[in-house]
Every structure is written in structure tokens, then in C-alpha cells.
């Protein structure tokens, strides 16, 4: 271990990484996500989003309320694909003329 302060354990994003990212001019939460990869691991930001956003507010001297969260997308938790395979929505997709044309 090398004294790293880890903010996002899924993607190994440290406080130093966040400072580096901000120093390169990426200061918006979506930019920070894309540059560092924080919040893109198995936990999808459950553990790190609040921590990174709070540190970002401090580093960029913004009021916390000015920092929005990154976009939340399904699935919110790891999901076996077999559970989705029989969704009635999937049948409708197969009947869709647009999807036939493209196949």
C-alpha cells in the first residue's frame, strides 16, 4: 500500500487522481466521471458519488448545491441477464417493423 486515499474502490480512483483531473480543467461531475472512471464500476457510484462530489465542491470552491449528480441509469444493481430475457417488452421489440428492417 502506498498511502493512497481511495475515493472509488471499484475503479481505484484516489483523491490525488481527482486533484489531477481538476488541475487539467475537468471540473464538471460528468467530465470527472469520464476522465477518472469513478462511479463506473460494479457499485455504480453508491459508495463514491457523494464523496467525490463533496471533494469536488471543496477543490473547485463551489457551493455543494451547485453540483448535480451524474445521470442515473438502469440497472441500479448487478442483474443477471437471464432475468431480462423473458420480459414481455422483448417480444414487442421483435414485432417492431423498425427492428425488422434493421435486422
Amino acid at each position, binding site marked *: 500500500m*502506498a498511502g493512497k486515499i481511495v475515493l472509488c474502490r471499484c475503479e*481505484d480512483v484516489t483523491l*490525488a487522481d481527482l486533484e489531477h483531473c481538476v488541475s487539467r480543467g475537468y471540473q464538471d461531475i460528468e467530465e470527472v466521471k469520464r476522465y477518472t472512471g469513478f462511479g463506473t464500476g460494479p457499485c455504480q457510484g453508491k*459508495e463514491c458519488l457523494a464523496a467525490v462530489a*463533496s471533494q469536488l465542491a471543496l477543490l473547485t470552491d463551489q457551493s455543494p448545491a451547485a453540483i448535480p449528480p451524474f445521470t442515473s441509469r438502469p440497472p441500479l444493481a448487478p442483474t443477471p441477464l437471464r432475468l431480462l430475457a*423473458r420480459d414481455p417488452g422483448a417480444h414487442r421489440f421483435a414485432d417492431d417493423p423498425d427492428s425488422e428492417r434493421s435486422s
Partner: protein
Amino acid sequence: MARRLPGHDAVRGEAIEVRIADTSVRAFPDESIAAAAIASGTRVLARSLKYHRPRTFFCFEGHCSGCLVRLSGVPNLRACQAACAAGAEVEGQNAFPSAEVDLLGAVDFLFSRGMDHHTLMTGSSVLNRLANKVVRQLSGLGKLPDRAATELPEVAVRTVDVCVIGGGPAGLAAAAATARAGRSTILVDDQLRPGGSLRTDPRTGRRAAETRWADTAAAGVEVLARSTAIGYFPEDDGGVLAVSSPDRLYRIHATSWIWATGGYPVNLPFPDNDRPGVLAARAVGRLLVDHGILGGDKVCIVEVPEVAADAAALAAALREAGAEVGRIGLASATGTRGRSWVSALDTLSGKVDCDLIAVAGIPAPASEGPRQQGCKVVLDPPAGGFRVVVDEHGRTSAAGVWACGDVTGYVGPAAAAEHGARVGMNVAMATMAVDW
């Protein structure tokens, strides 16, 4: 070392055997693989994907990525959300040759000041491309399952007046209130057993969780345990919440939605805060009050002032169970020591020997589901993170969507239960007006 406390009233039943990293381990059918593993001395389960730092249990509630394992041939399952079954085979992943001794851990030292994967070999685009190829070989999580899934289960549909998401103190109280007012109510909870933070707090505990769960079911609520809200799809049949459970997917339609998802345990920023043996304070509480497992004999609690009362309650309960406990403010924590598990916490006033570090931060509101339903959230660090904004009745900014408990800002189990009961009654009253 973690150990089971004799005479604890955890529901245990007959002991069974599971295999963890080729060693037979005593376990109980009612507990998670993670609980059995930590009680039997398992330390490192995996390696992180970039620096190959050791990874293992942290939150014990399925919300971090610390305890991902390969379980009976299926990769990337959370050990804390898998119930022990006789004959289960647990393997670590993402390490060579093993999680405990991983040669790739050298990456951590080679890049001791960090690694910017955009500019691995600054100055040479050719070297950069090569380095990125190597990195891609080293990264990734787990290996493909032994075999493909053969059963594709039918999807179940539920149409109800009220859907409550989260079965902690707030959600159980809210669902009981709407059901008693005659509203058909379903409650989904992602844990092995509902109860949420009731099962982590020595001031409430396992019995309170079991009682309130039973009361909520008795009020007529359909309680889906081990069921996770994975997404809200507004364009689909007038809005549908997809919920995954171990054996099927549910599509839920509801007139009113109540988010009671609580907060996630978080780590705090101090050097080497990710060393194995650094657990969320709530996880240490859960092991103690729900599983009857004392996580360590010498425990350091690293805390922030906002949760001092919670930390004090945990410290008292750990001491009563026989542990030595020290409480250290975050600002004083300067590092951790230990090889495959913590052996000490470094502080401004010197080294404190310990075999467990419990991190007491403010739980981060679990607001990503409400965000998908269009609820306004605001970053409010003293409330733990992005809290859902609600009015005095519990209404969010989205029509028909309500929230209560810690997801609206950290309040703790007692206040969350009161808030849940109040918001549940408000939802029942509001939908009565719609009926007329």
C-alpha cells in the same frame, strides 16, 4: 480476529459446510457467505482492477464492490448477498496466483503516485497504445461462468396502489401505514432479510427488524425480500419499476411510489483507507447485532462528528461484547498498517494497534432510483450526499412520488421509522382525495 459470540440469539440453525478458497468452513444457512467467511478468518477475496490492491468485505449490505466472488461457477456475485448453501464453492477472483498473494500487486508500488490511463507513457502515442493494451489484459472483473443459464423465468407483473422501495425502518413503517389504510401495497427490499439499518444499530437490532417485518406483512403488505429495484422506465406502459429477485423479474405498476432506500455506508478519506480490515461502522454493527460475530478484539472507530452518537452506541456494544475500542476523529487518522489485514491505525498522536477499523461516515442517501423518477436531489454533505428533496408531507418534486427516512438526508433508524409512518399516512390520505 473476527469470532462468533457464544449464546448470541442470531438465527443460526444447523451448521453446514461451504468451501472458501479450497478450505472447508463452518457456516449457517441463514447467514451470508460473507458473514461465514469473515467469521472463519477469510481476509482477502479479490484484487482491485487497476492497482491490484487487496479487496474484501466493507459494507456487508450489497452496495460496495468489495466482496465480489466467484460462487459455484458464477462470477461477480456479492458474498454478502448470497445465502450460505451446503456445498457452495467460493473462489476469489481478479488475482494471480491468488487474492492473498497477487504478483500484480506490484502495479500499486510502480505507480505509487497514481496512474493517469490517458497518458500512461507520456510523450509517445505508440507506447501509450501498447501500454493501454497491457492494462486491458490486466483489468476486467472475473471470468465467464462455467455454463450458460438454461432457465429463463417468466416475468411477474404486480399492479398496486402503493409501491414502497426499501424495507428498513422507514419503508416498513410507511408500507404498514398505507396497507392499514386499505391501499394495496407492495414492498421491495434488496437484502437477504428486510430490516435495513435496524439490523446494524445496537439500539434496535435483529429482534426489532424481525418484529417490524412481521407487523408489516401482517398489515397485508406483500413483502418481496432479496428484490432490488433496478430501474424505472417511464415510457413503458405508463411507467414501470423493474425489480430483480433471485428467481424472477417483477414489473411493478403503482399509483404512488414511496422511496425509503435509506443511505449507503461510505468510506472516509484518509491514507490507505481501503486496506482489508477497514469496514463500514454499520457493517461492524451488523456483524455484531444481526450475526453475533465480533469483528475484532481491538477496534478503532474513525468517525466524523455528525454521527458521534451512532459511533458511541457501537463502541459501547463492542465493549460489552469484550472488545477494546478506541474512537478517533477523521482529521487525526493519517494511515493504516498491516499486510493482508489491518494491524494498526496511524494517528496524529501515534500508532494505535488494532485488528479492525470501523469507519463511521454519514450514510450517503440512496437516491439514484428517485433520480430516475425525476425527483429533485441536492448535494448536502451534512446530510450524507445527494438527498431527495421533500416537502413537510414527504412529497418529492415528481407527481405521485414520495420519500421518507435517510434517503431524504441522514436521520438514523428511530427518526426514519417515525418519518416513514407519517409519510405513509400522508400517501393514504392523498390517494383518498383522488378516489373521490
